[in-house]
């Protein structure tokens, strides 16, 4: 067909796009007004205080307090991500391989703590881990230990509670990815004589890797910004970056000093996203496809 009349389907599509944009615009405005502008304003303050200044950034990059906090934050985030993967993968695998009713039960159990306040969970861990807590008292009752173990008010307690809070962010993307791996592939592997473990290693595991990467990225990035858990369970020594941010507001009495720390962390996170996106499409990390 060679007519000059525009393709009606294209026109229709354009109108639909316009409608979509109109529908989305209130949400966009809210995000712009409540997130983009304030965050931008805070970032601006980090370089502008009675004139342009890089003082806040000089401090972040020269004083070793900051360096130690960033290092500790990345160490904790890595540890949490690793542990969450080790704990989360079998759970997701199980949920994927059992009948539907069971998988719903397993996933509900994963998500259930998610609906409890982070603060409540931090205190619950305190009740379990502290000197007079359930675990220490039980171990002493069994005569396994004579002195209570230092399970909390340190990095250990922080990591335990953080893993607990972030586990759903590992399990859910893993499960979503595993759901999409066709079962026929396993059966094909088996019919060709491969043992179950070989099929798993050669077929299932590689196909689940996008989920692993997605889950790890989510957990790692969320962990970088943890505040209340290390504050309550870290004993004061576990100073993560978010705590530096809050401390700097008090210490320097201006937002710029705190904002610079946040900007550096944000850039760090963006860098991580950038590196990860070289290996995997970001859409998948964010659960779009």
């Amino acid at each position, binding site marked *: 067909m060679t007519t000059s009349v525009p393709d009606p389907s294209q026109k229709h599509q354009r109108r639909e796009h316009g409608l979509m944009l109109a529908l989305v615009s209130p949400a966009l405005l809210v995000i712009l007004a409540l997130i983009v502008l304030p965050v931008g304003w805070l970032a601006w303050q980090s370089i502008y205080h009675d004139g342009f200044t890089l003082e806040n950034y000089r401090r972040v990059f020269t*004083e*070793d*307090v900051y360096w*130690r*906090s960033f290092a500790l934050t990345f160490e904790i985030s890595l540890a949490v991500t690793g542990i969450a993967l080790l704990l989360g993968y079998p759970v997701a695998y199980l949920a994927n391989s059992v009948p539907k009713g069971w998988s719903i039960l397993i996933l509900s159990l994963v998500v259930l703590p998610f609906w409890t306040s982070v603060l409540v969970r931090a205190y619950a861990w*305190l009740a379990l881990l*502290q*000197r*007079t807590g359930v675990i220490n008292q039980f171990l002493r009752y069994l005569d396994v230990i004579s002195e209570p173990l*230092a399970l909390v*008010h340190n990095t250990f307690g922080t990591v335990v509670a953080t893993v607990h809070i972030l586990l759903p962010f590992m399990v859910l993307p893993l499960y979503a990815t595993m759901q999409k791996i066709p079962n026929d592939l396993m059966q094909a592997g088996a019919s060709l004589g491969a043992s179950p473990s070989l099929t798993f290693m050669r077929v299932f595991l590689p196909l689940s890797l996008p989920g692993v990467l997605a889950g790890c990225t989510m957990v790692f990035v969320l962990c970088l910004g943890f505040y209340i858990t290390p*504050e*309550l369970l870290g*004993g*004061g*020594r576990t*100073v993560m970056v978010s705590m*530096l941010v809050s*401390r700097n*507001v008090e*210490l320097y*009495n201006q937002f710029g000093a705190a904002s610079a720390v946040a900007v550096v962390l944000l850039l760090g996170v963006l860098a991580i996203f950038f590196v990860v996106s070289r290996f995997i499409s970001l859409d998948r990390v964010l659960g779009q496809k």
Partner: protein
Amino acid sequence: MTMKRKFGLGCALLGAVGLTTAADAAEQITFVSQGGAYQQAQTVAILDPSAKKLGITINQDSIPDAWPAIKTQVGSGKPIWDVVDTPTGYCLRGGEQGLIEKLDFSKIPNAAAMPEAYRNPYSVSYEFYSSVLAYSQKTFPKDAPNSWADFWDVKKFPGRRALRNHPIATLEAALMADGVAPDKLYPLDVDRAFRKLEEIKPHITVWWTSGAQSAQLLNDGEVDMEMAWNGRVSAVAKEGAKVAYTYNQGILQSTSLCILKGAPNLETAVKFLNEAVDPVHQANLPLHIDYGPGNPKAFETGVIKPERAAQLPSEPANAAKQALMSYAWWSSPAGEAAEKRWASFMQK
């Protein structure tokens, strides 16, 4: 003190009601404190009686940490608050930065009659609390630790310890542990204090950040002794926990009243300031909460019974055992440098 809970909404509503009915009839001010049981106690003991006596309306607001709000309000050029009750250090710092009005004590006779250590050019002591040495009576049924030297003596007093994750009062305690007399602390020998703190650091289980946390640590037996605010310890003791504290070598701290620079009702605010530190109103405060009056004359009014007075941090005999915090030192450059040094001490 920063953990007192908000009940600002209720107050704001009450204030708004008061505003519509009495605004054109009477003078008014907006008063800001830290909320919670503390602000309620003030309302009964000080604010309502003052409003009645002066014939003014006191609109209340509350905020756990007033400092950032003071900065923004005054910075905007049109503050809405008049009088703020906030840790004395902020009043001083605010005064130096031009955020707080300089007081004319000739118009505030009640404050002028107070000892000089209880006021400064920008503010007047409003109430006292103390950073004290608290301990578990289960661990120490007798021969309890009674000084910061005892707290530092891990051989004679074995047990788990906690300190506040903040240099204010903690450096003072370290120096007293090292033998400095409570009245000879200032200017603080910061190097010496940090050296002494390095000594106890391995034996500190928790560096607490909030008053609630310090109470929980003591209540659950998570630590055997710690530095804590007297009101927090007595609250835990009232709940039945076997805990106690000593005022010996406590660090006496205060919040003060100050007036925002360019406050909308400056003259009424000054009148209120004078009334708020009136000895009788002040004497009523400890009848409702475990804080001591900011005006020591309150103890001469007869309103506070002797057995109650003995429990209060600013009662003269108790005050004599303690160190009076110098907010002037803490807001000096040396004090600010010490505060910044704390972070690197903690993370080493």
